């Protein structure tokens, strides 16, 4: 009797350790943390400017495994003028208030 108790305790401890390890591995492969893992595994150079799409991933790299991702930011309000200004779009005169060119707008 005195010999079997420590063996059972050791077996229980081993099972507990294995269960904890499997749980950690499963959490590490969840979609929520995949981008964070990708970034930590590949030390790519940082983008020239932090884009809004990248910010949530960097900010939630660690707690993402245990906490749900925050709701996405509300979309930006639509602009009143769909034409790019300041030489945007096709860069022709009509994007700066000049005469319209002959493109077919495709």
């Amino acid at each position, binding site marked *: 009797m005195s010999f079997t108790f420590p063996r059972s305790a050791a077996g229980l401890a081993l099972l507990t350790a294995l269960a904890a390890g499997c749980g950690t591995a499963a959490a590490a492969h969840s979609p929520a943390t995949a981008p964070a893992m990708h970034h930590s595994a590949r030390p790519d150079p940082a983008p020239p400017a932090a884009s809004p799409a990248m910010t949530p991933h960097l900010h939630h790299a660690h707690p993402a495994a245990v906490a749900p991702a925050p709701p996405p930011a509300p979309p930006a309000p639509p602009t009143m*003028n769909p*034409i790019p*200004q300041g*030489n945007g779009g*096709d*860069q*022709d*005169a*009509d*994007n*700066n*208030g*000049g*005469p*319209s*060119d*002959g*493109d*077919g*707008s*495709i």
Partner: protein
Amino acid sequence: MSARSSHRGRLLLAATLAAVAVAATAIAATALAGQPARPGFPALHPAAAPASWPRATLLGGAAVLAFPPSLRRVISDADAVSAAQLGPGGGYQLYLNATPRQGAENLAHWASFRLRLLRSDDATAARLLAAAGGIQFRGGTGSCVIDTYLTRIGGHHFTEIACLIRGRASASVIVAAAPAARWARARPLLLRAVAAYQVR
């Protein structure tokens, strides 16, 4: 009395014959030029531009835009060419553009296509002034529209003639525009540039 009547009759006959001759000459000249009469639309007689006018060629040689020396090349789409005369403040005084046909525009519906494009893209309002089809160009046949519009950006009021021209191997668009307030003065020069447009 009868002599006077006879004289009056001869005069009337001569006047009638002269009127018929004038009308026949006008019709023949129009037919030879390939330009059917178009009420409200200016006559476009295809003719080469003066040698002193600079030329800009579309990619692949699809068309050649000749523009008056008072204009200079300005930025345009990659596959297009533009020339303009700018005012002291940088505003467009004269504008010419040639662009290969890109969308669903065709000769039969050119005027409606152009107005719809203006309203949906660059202008808050666009109004048709005149339109015509079957116009002869150097190397092809085209449909043209004259319209006036208000730009979405800046609220500038322009008047333009825009033509879709189909040549043997390609189709392209030429646009000639000026501020509406200057259109009457600019029109002869712009029409000359349009008439000199060469397509292939």
